[in-house]
């Protein structure tokens, strides 16, 4: 029996499935509508369909699957839409308002009307309990267990689903958090409980508190989701342990992700970025801006020299989170984004989304507020009768009626209003790209825009024009790129222990122990993941700083025994890095080690991307028909040839106006744009 590897990316609107047969490593893709009430249903159904279609697997269709990787937006959507659990907080007495106070800075320096992000735990559910450790771990006030019980019972009476626990200095000594956790778990056996030392055992209480709180806020949603999905996959015969992608592009077991949903807030988009790195490399573009537009949001990232920036802490949807992640910026602009006229009479688009259910007006499922997709249907940039390769019927009449109603209130024509919706959403997305480019000192005009996601290729040229980007690349399967990314990433995990110690010979035994601890954790992980000895890679790092500083620099541990030479090499590495970053070394100042890390990588067989010699056939052979599309350039409906994506072969070229259709996406080629197909089957568009 053939073995298969499967990647599943579940977005707010569609679920994408990508399959690779392990022998020929050819890629197959499938796409189904998401089932937002229970995303696991759509995933299971989609995987079953895809395996039936491509692997002839019928009963227990997932038996031949050796690897299943999954990217999800469950966590991020719950955070954006404030639909997480009802959370209670237990913290050190006198500090229950810290969650609101944060670092006491205001949200905007100059904008009087800016708001802080919503506080995830209402004041009435924040409980301070008597307990106190000091910075050396000594107990100043023992934990008042009765106060913890009272708080837990009050939370129980309120019906909380999750509890966050964060005490001062829990990263030094977790004993009070551990005891409080036991008490809470005893009284609220069904609640998701997260103690701060478990999720972010690092100094700075507010950021640790916020990370634990966000984790608790997302926990119940994520656990329910994962357990349902696991049951369904097992029911379909899956024997291999499924994996979930993390925000840094690596993957984790389902159990690990269920305990740490805060590490998955960028799960979905990070896989797209991993795939874009691989495709960009193959296409010869090392400097890319990725533009992943789905149904509810768009994710953008900047890749310079083939690499995307990583961060250990970032503010996600307004919340500071301590977790490794790729530098991805998200904006609430997608195909399902709803267009409304605001109180001031201006047209606004998003961030509210119609999602998959009821979906855009044109789905005919009861929504009456026009979306970006409805505008594209009315303009006929999207097929006005069917989408998903003919599998889903579309009601253009309903979409047009909704936009006509809006047009009358604005005093504009119907087509101008539809195009206006596109212009407003394009400007929103351009602002997101400015955050990752110009705001970081990169000129977007030096980059290629790589568009993917179900709606990316439809809007890419408009967005490129707004930013004066000259080249747009649309990969072969833009609607399922994230799913493909799951099959291009190695298994990764990282392990850390924070232990402050001076970098001199007396610390040698402690350094050896700390490095051995994280290395052993990496070995355990390799075994648990079934990663063979030949494919294991471990990189040990030490984060160091001068005594008195509060930010560390990371230095790789040289091979060889832990001895005086190693310490000398680490110090030399630190001083070199400090000089590179800051231009000086502080001679005579003590250097301290703070955190010891192991980065573990399990190499996997990657999907092979196609690479074909250009043929000499003309693109005419790929034309399947023609459609009248309304372009602002012509100001009227203009006959535009429809190209079949599957029939477009390397070497072919054509010019806009045109539209390229495929099962998972539609690429719009407006007038004045030239398109060619490169060796890998990507569409490369040049803007004049």
């Amino acid at each position: 029996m053939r073995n298969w590897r499967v990647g599943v990316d579940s977005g707010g609107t569609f679920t994408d499935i990508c399959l690779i047969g392990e022998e020929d490593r050819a890629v197959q893709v499938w796409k189904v509508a998401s089932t937002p009430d229970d995303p696991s249903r759509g995933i299971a159904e989609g995987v079953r369909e895809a395996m039936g279609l491509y692997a002839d697997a019928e009963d227990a269709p997932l038996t031949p699957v050796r690897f299943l990787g999954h990217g999800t937006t469950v966590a991020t959507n719950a955070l954006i839409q404030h639909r997480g659990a009802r959370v209670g907080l237990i913290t050190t007495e006198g500090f229950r308002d810290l969650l609101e106070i944060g670092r006491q800075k205001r949200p905007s320096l100059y904008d009087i009307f800016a708001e802080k992000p919503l506080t995830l735990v209402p004041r009435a559910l924040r409980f301070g309990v008597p307990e106190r450790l000091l910075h050396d771990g000594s107990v100043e006030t023992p934990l008042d267990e009765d106060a913890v019980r009272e708080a837990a019972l009050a939370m129980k009476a309120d019906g909380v689903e999750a509890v966050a626990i964060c005490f001062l200095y829990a990263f030094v000594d977790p004993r009070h958090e551990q005891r409080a956790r036991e008490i809470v778990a005893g009284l609220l056996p069904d609640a998701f409980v997260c103690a701060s030392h478990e999720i972010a055992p690092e100094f700075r209480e507010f950021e640790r508190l916020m990370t634990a709180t966000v984790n608790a806020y997302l926990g119940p949603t994520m656990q329910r989701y994962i357990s349902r999905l696991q049951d369904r996959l097992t029911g379909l015969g899956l024997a291999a342990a499924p994996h979930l992608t993390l925000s840094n592009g690596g993957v984790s077991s389902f159990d690990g992700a269920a305990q740490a949903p805060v590490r998955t807030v960028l799960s979905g988009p990070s896989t797209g970025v991993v795939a874009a790195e691989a495709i960009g490399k193959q296409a010869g573009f090392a400097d890319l801006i990725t533009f992943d537009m789905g149904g509810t949001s768009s994710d953008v990232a900047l890749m310079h020299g083939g690499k995307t920036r990583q961060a250990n802490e970032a503010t996600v949807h307004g919340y500071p989170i301590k977790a490794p992640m790729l530098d991805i910026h998200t904006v609430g602009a997608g195909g399902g984004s709803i267009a409304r006229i605001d109180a001031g009479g201006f047209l606004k688009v998003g961030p509210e989304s119609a999602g998959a259910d009821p979906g855009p007006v044109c789905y005919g499922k009861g929504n009456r507020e026009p979306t970006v997709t409805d505008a594209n249907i009315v303009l006929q940039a999207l097929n006005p009768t069917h989408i998903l390769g003919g599998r889903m019927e579309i009601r253009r009449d309903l979409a047009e009626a909704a936009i006509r109603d809006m047009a009358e209130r604005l005093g504009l024509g119907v087509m101008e209003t539809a195009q206006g919706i596109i212009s407003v959403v394009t400007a929103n997305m351009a602002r997101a790209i400015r955050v990752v480019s110009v705001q970081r000192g990169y000129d977007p005009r030096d980059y290629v825009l790589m568009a993917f996601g179900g709606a990316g290729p439809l809007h890419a040229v408009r967005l490129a024009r707004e930013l004066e980007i000259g080249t747009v690349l649309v990969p072969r399967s833009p609607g399922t790129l994230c799913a493909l990314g799951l099959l291009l990433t190695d298994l990764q995990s990282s392990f850390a222990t924070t232990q402050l110690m001076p970098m001199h010979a007396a610390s040698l035994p402690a350094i050896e122990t700390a490095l051995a601890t994280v290395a052993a954790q990496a070995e355990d992980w390799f075994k648990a993941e079934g990663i063979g000895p030949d494919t294991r890679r471990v990189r040990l790092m030490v984060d160091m700083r001068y005594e008195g500083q509060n930010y560390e620099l990371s230095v790789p541990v040289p091979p060889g025994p832990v001895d005086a030479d190693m310490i000398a090499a680490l110090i030399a590495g630190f001083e070199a890095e400090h000089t590179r970053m800051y231009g000086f070394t502080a001679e005579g100042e003590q250097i301290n080690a703070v955190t010891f890390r192991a980065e573990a990588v399990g190499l996997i067989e990657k999907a092979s991307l196609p690479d074909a010699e250009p043929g000499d056939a003309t693109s005419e052979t790929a034309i399947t028909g023609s459609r009248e599309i309304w372009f602002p350039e012509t100001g009227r409906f203009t006959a535009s040839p429809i190209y079949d994506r599957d029939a477009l072969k390397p070497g072919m070229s054509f010019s806009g106006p045109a539209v390229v259709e495929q099962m998972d996406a539609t690429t719009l080629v407006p007038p004045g744009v030239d398109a060619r197909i490169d060796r890998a089957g990507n569409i490369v568009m040049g803007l004049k």
Partner: protein
Amino acid sequence: MNELATPARAVPAQAKPTPLDPITVEVIGSALASIVDETGETLVRASYSTNIKERRDCSTALFDREGRTLCQAEHIPIHLGSFIEFVPRLLAQHALADIAPGDVFIGNDAYEGGGTHLPDIVLAEPIFVDGALAAWTVNLAHHSDFADRGHAHIYQEGLRIPPIRLYRAGTLNQDVQDLILLNCQVPRERLSDLRAQMAANRVGVQRFQALCARYGVDVVLAAGEALLDYAERKMRAGIAALPDGRYAFEDVFDGLETTEPLPLKVTVTIAGETMALDFESPDQVRSPINMTMTALQATTYYMVKSVVDPTVLPNAGLARPLTIRARTGSVLNCAHPAAVDGRVQTCQRVADLILGALAQAVPDRVMACTNSACTVAVFAGSRESGPQQGKLWIYLETIGGGGGARAGADGLDGIHVHTTNTSNLPVEALELEYPLILARYELVDGSAGAGQYRGGMGLRRVYRATEDCWVKVDTSRVKSRSWGLQGGQAGGGGYFRLSPDTPPFDGSRGFLKRGDWLEVVSPGGGGFGAPGERSPDLDAQDVRDGITFADR
């Protein structure tokens, strides 16, 4: 429609000496913003003192050859006051021909160096491109030193440093550094933070030179000019949209450093696209609350920009349509040798004074009075134990308070307002570094001004000393209250309390013995609209969350 409000795109390219497309200007503007962000981040990460590395009480900026602000990082608005006069003063004292690459100028003086108070030490380094001076990279760090000093006049407040060379052509001027460090109580921190300031300027020089290599120095400088013009155009268009008229507002300043309330008044005159602000205040006082003209300018630029158009670029162009007048020798425009260390308290009141005047012109674009203070606690002592035994230590922190209720929204709780915006120090950092324990940190019940939209709540911090130490507390609104708008009620005041056996402080200053505690409470913000108009939903939420309002 006035001419100056016409957007950049409409200006014919040939009308400018160096034609630049708006996209290039925007990209270079963003690159300048990203340079000052990066220099700011470098300063924070390389620094040693808690005031910089965690509280981020520092700012970075780029200036053009003539010393006009090209771009200031979004850190602390009042720091602009120290920046705006530094390069012009420096150029007045040093011949341009003598300034060489690798020179680094240091200064802090309120009267000879354009500073606003002595702890804010500025380091400025010229940026040379193709052998010619092209711009300046400048940064400021609030060195938390000069504690336990007098404030009758500036000579008591610390070491006065005019703009002089700390480095000449890349070589340290050791004599100058030794002199400065000998006058500081915690020299090791000062030296380390000065190194961090050097590192930040080094990044600024490199990044600006790289930008010039990419676009050409002429294009970068022309873009800088265009950005100043752009800020001016936006500011003028914004002012033109406000109703013309004269709007006067009066308040008093009262704090722990003054005995009598000081009457303050502003008259804002809006005429077309210009705005004039005339300030009236008593003669300067023998107390640290006096403001230099640069502090008054920085405060006014901040507040007017926030109301007129928060998106105007923070560069020198925004000041062009504004006229600021205040009598020399008065509290709001003090002259040598007035003390200025606590000027931030007065700056906060001036910002609210301007809000009160502008509320008459555009009632829906302002907020009620904020907590109108920058509550400060300073602790100093000599370490009694541990590796630093016998060494002096100083810890300064500023505490946020209530924001004013907005037209249509409650005020923000427990935030820094107006001219300051520093972070708190994490408890886990505070207790590791200093012999103090923080017992409470919370929002203050009964501090919010009631209203249809309530004012923001103040903050409470309770410290316990684990070693004997000297303390100074500064806050404001100790007798007066932060006013509401349109029927909104006043917020709660600022105060401090001591453990029962602690001897009372002499005004704002006193001593804590090991085990004593100090409670500092910052004021709340004023409400907006009559309390009876508050929605039942918000009322119910107040009850659930246990939020109570300040007494009338």
